[in-house]
């Protein structure tokens, strides 16, 4: 099992938007804002399968996310806006603009649960 580094990009998702209108304290909202969209090859490198958890770290904090395969570039990780993603950012340095690195926070990610075999083989077995 290996770790990966890349850029975290925070995004709006329709489910995150809809769930926060119901309640920001609900399980559904928390589940959505911890859903990481990640490239299939990166998942394989991490040895995690869809729905498995990983730890994401930045210089400012760390969080547990649930990995979901998505059609996104390798090395870019997409997490919905919200209090979970915000653990990985700092408001102290905005390069004089007032805007943190919402679209390019450097992070590392490592699996918390792993598949025993590479993801591709695992899914074939299933």
């Amino acid at each position: 099992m290996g770790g990966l580094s890349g850029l975290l990009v925070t995004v709006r998702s329709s489910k995150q938007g809809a769930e926060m209108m119901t309640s920001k304290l609900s399980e559904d909202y928390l589940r959505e804002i911890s859903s990481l969209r990640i490239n299939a090859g990166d998942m394989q490198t991490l040895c995690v399968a869809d729905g498995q958890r990983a730890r994401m770290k930045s210089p400012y904090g760390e969080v547990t996310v649930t990995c979901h395969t998505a059609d996104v570039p390798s090395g870019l990780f997409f997490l919905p806006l919200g209090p979970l993603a915000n653990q990985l950012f700092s408001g102290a340095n905005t390069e004089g603009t007032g805007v943190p690195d919402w679209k390019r926070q450097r992070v590392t990610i490592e699996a918390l649960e792993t598949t025993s075999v590479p993801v591709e083989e695992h899914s074939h077995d299933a």
Partner: protein
Amino acid sequence: MPDTTSSQVPLENVTPRPTDITVHRSVVCTFCGCLCDDIEVEVQDNQIRKVKKACLIGRNKIMHSQSNSPRPTIQGREVSIADTIAEAARILRTAKFPLVYGLSSATTEAQKELVEIAEILDGNLDNPSSYCHGPGVMARQQVGLATCTLGEVKNRADLVIFWGCNPMESHMRHLSRYSSQPKGLFTGEGRKGRKIIAIDIRPTATTKAADQFIQVEPGTTFETATVLRALVRGLKLGISDDNALVAGVPLRVWRELAEAIKSCKYGVIFFGLGVTQCRGRDLNPEQLSVLVREVNDFTRFYAIPMRGHGNVAGCNQVMGWQTGYPLAVNFSRGYPRYNPGEFSVLGLLGRKEIDAALIVATDPGAHLPQDSVRYLRDIPTIYLEPHNNTTTGWATVVIPVAPAGVAAAGTFYRMDNIPLRVKKIVESPLPSDEEVLRSIKEKIVHAQDC
């Protein structure tokens, strides 16, 4: 129809007959900058029963607007709303360097009160645009923006470019109401007569709905806009190979896009946080705005920022009228000063300069970075909010208010800066933002006069 007051019917068995359903038409959804104003809401016995025509987010917002109100509290202890107002005024008038922040989902009438409170306190005033579309606001101060209304887009646009935004998930009815499908005065064929292009760093629901998806490398907005400026003006690039990559995309693709831009009858770029928050920040929308201006030498061409919160455009309007600046304003010298890096909410929190905060119509617990939230939790924070959320649990003073656009009327500004009147369709036992803020202001002023 039985007479329910008859002595033959035991009163305890009588279920009060529900009143008739009232259908409110042309209700404005206040979630995002689209401000869809065609929503139908059915109300019975002062309860919202059904919401029609809204997107999933808008429907949830209106359906849940009457539930989950916080209790009025001071340091977690439940008190009356009058007590919270008195404590809020006390905290603010004794603070040395307070912050007034939020505004983005409040009515412009409430926003005006917030500006006045910040001025009376010689404090700081900011809104969430400072960390969202603020770079675009700063760019407009530098180079202006050729822009238009969403109505003009619907009626005239034959080329629409979505750049760094994903309205299919963030502004769900944007394409169906304004920018893609609708048939207008000069766009009788609707979607068929429009070319839709999406520029983004990943495939999204919006890029799938487009005729062409140009997938760029992250952080390349500035060079992309620069290359397009040069191609539109016919300048030599010094690159002979049309397959050479610019922002990860062959130059010929940019050349074709430049031609599509020049040859359209009426083109519009909708740009999102992928433009304003990526590397270069305000330089990106500035370069994009100059591109739009230069294209007008060839055809009619405009840009509109995809504003997020329902009245965040109104924040910039109201602060612009009343202070001269759209965000990040400081009054400590007795007159408004503007400096986004210095007086924006994250700058002030990052340097731990403020000693109290009045926060209205935003949720810092969910929106701000962890260190900013941690500092806010260390100082007296007064919070006006219609619903329990990630801030109501720790704010020093929580004042529940009636939700704007449902139980409080007022004005909101759409993303194209068109003001719309939002309605009051149900009664609420809670005061509006505007009423609470006026009371706080009067108590501060009265205390200063004594």
